[in-house]
């Protein structure tokens, strides 16, 4: 999810930089009165905590490992305002010190993960907790759902930026399917981890949880992992990932990608050769030997997702075996 330099063109990166600066400026203005001097060391420690928790990688698909973005976690633990600042600081230091995410892409990363990631999570959390009874279990469940939505929304932000200024020449619909589909799966992990972390804190110090203070949950509450709820959440997440890849992705290419646009602008769009990838089994997201284009696209999406999931599971299995003895310090000193 950390966008490197050169991935998105300069105009879009600069636009995102201005948006990020404006958004963060508004957030800073808002917390100026509430962020007491006492909270600065606490926010710094929280940022260090988020950085360390982000090192808990869970491999997802074909070589991409998802790590906790932490947007929903900070929003509910610290509130969305301080949370957005904390995530921005983490992103700034990752770009400067750890070469994780590009420096010209910092604005893009802040918009996606600190602004969209945190505030979407907070909106969903508030909405769910407003509708449901205010108990510890609801709080934890709402946190899981909010995490999932926030991760998918953040990846949606990436796709939008790619559609505006991507330099990769991959069609927007492919990028949508890859990014949003994969992040719909990553979101499941994000949701489960966020919920477990929150449950652990609520069991001991509910007074530290901003979301719990707001809802008036003050006594320590033990929220036990409910097998059925967890299974429902995981299955719903997978179903939503399938839905996004199969139904939404083919319609995501309303903007023609760079080369095609140039071609149509110059009137030679129809002189191009028929795609030579027609031989590849998943060419243009339709399955060879299936006559109906709609059904073929759906099948291709589904096969892709299942394959992705299988590869992800395999990678997870192998890396978990290898990584069991690796220390956390190695990850800090990558």
């Amino acid at each position, binding site marked *: 999810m950390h966008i490197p*330099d*050169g*991935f998105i063109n*300069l105009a879009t*990166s600069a636009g995102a930089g201005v948006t990020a600066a404006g958004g963060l400026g508004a957030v*800073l203005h808002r*917390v100026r009165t509430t962020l007491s*001097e006492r909270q*600065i*060391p606490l926010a*710094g*420690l929280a*940022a*260090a905590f988020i*950085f360390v*928790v982000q090192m*808990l990688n869970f491999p997802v698909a074909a070589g991409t490992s998802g790590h906790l973005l932490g947007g929903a976690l900070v929003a509910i*633990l610290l509130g969305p305002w301080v949370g957005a*600042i904390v995530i921005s600081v983490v992103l*700034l230091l990752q*770009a*400067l*010190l*750890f*070469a*994780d995410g*590009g*420096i*010209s892409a910092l604005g893009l990363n802040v918009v996606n993960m600190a602004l969209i990631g945190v505030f979407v999570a907070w909106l969903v959390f508030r909405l769910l907790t407003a509708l449901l009874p205010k108990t510890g279990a609801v709080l934890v469940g709402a946190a899981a759902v909010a995490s999932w939505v926030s991760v998918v929304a953040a990846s949606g932000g990436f796709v939008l930026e790619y559609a505006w200024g991507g*330099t*990769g*020449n*991959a*069609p927007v619909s492919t990028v949508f399917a890859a990014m949003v589909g994969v992040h719909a799966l990553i979101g499941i*992990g994000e949701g*489960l*981890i966020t*919920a*477990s*972390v*929150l449950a*652990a*804190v609520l*069991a*001991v*110090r509910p007074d530290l949880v901003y979301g719990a203070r707001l809802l008036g949950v003050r006594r320590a509450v033990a929220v036990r992992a409910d097998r059925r709820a967890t299974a429902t959440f995981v299955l719903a997440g997978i179903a939503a990932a399938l839905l996004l890849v199969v139904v939404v992705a083919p319609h995501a290419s309303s903007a023609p990608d760079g*080369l095609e646009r140039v071609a149509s602008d110059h009137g030679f769009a129809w002189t191009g*050769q028929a795609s*030579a*990838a027609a031989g*590849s089994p998943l060419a243009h997201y339709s399955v060879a030997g299936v006559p109906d284009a709609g059904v073929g696209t759906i099948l291709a999406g589904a096969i892709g997702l299942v394959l992705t999931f299988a590869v992800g599971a395999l990678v997870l299995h192998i890396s*978990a075996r290898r990584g*069991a003895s690796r*220390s*956390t*310090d190695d*990850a*800090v*000193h*990558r």
Partner: protein
Amino acid sequence: MSAGHAHALYVHGDSRVHALPAHVKLVALLIVIVAVVATPRERVGVFAAHAVVIIAAAACAHLSPRFIGGRLLIGAPFLAFAVLLPFVGGGDRVVVGALSLSVGGLWGAWSVLVKGTLALAASVVVTATTPVPALLTGLGRLRVPVVITEIAGFMVRYLEVIAGEMHRAKVAMAARGYQPRWAWQGTALATSAGALFIRSHERGERVYDAMLSRGYQGRLPQLGATAATRADWARALALPLCAAAAAALAVIG
């Protein structure tokens, strides 16, 4: 700021680049990165010029090519995406051996690779020659709000402490015969992450109390903030402006 706190990418040295004020280096870095990102991808020669600029800067900083190369491996995960592009890209196609590749996708892959790598190499030169406290002071001089730089300062200082606590929790788990391996065992790790948050928070409170007892009044003292002379600016910007000029010519021409 705690003196001598080194981070993963910092290399101690006494080169001219090390001696430059941090905010000057940050401006120089931004110019190089903007020049690299703005260069049209078809202008291969201009990227070579950018590479020469970055290698010259690395040589001035006494950083070996091997060191820079090792650090560039951090960007390796993005190679995976770049490798995919020629297969999924649209437009005209070329046949290379048994593979049919998209021309646009090949250019896209080249663009992502060369721009990402050059920008990363440039930022490695700056971060390897600038200690963290200086970087944060430099950000402050570039008008980054003090709330951001102070939170960043605390984060950097306590990063290793928190990572150490997480590590000890894992060791304690392993010592009791539990080594989570499967995804569904993640709950155990997440629970220790929850405990870690509480510990971080309580540590933050102790840190604040300790700071108060040492006379903290809401603002950390700025130590060793060096002002930049005109000569500093000239020395630091000479190479980046070459890169910027090359990029500007490439965009116009």
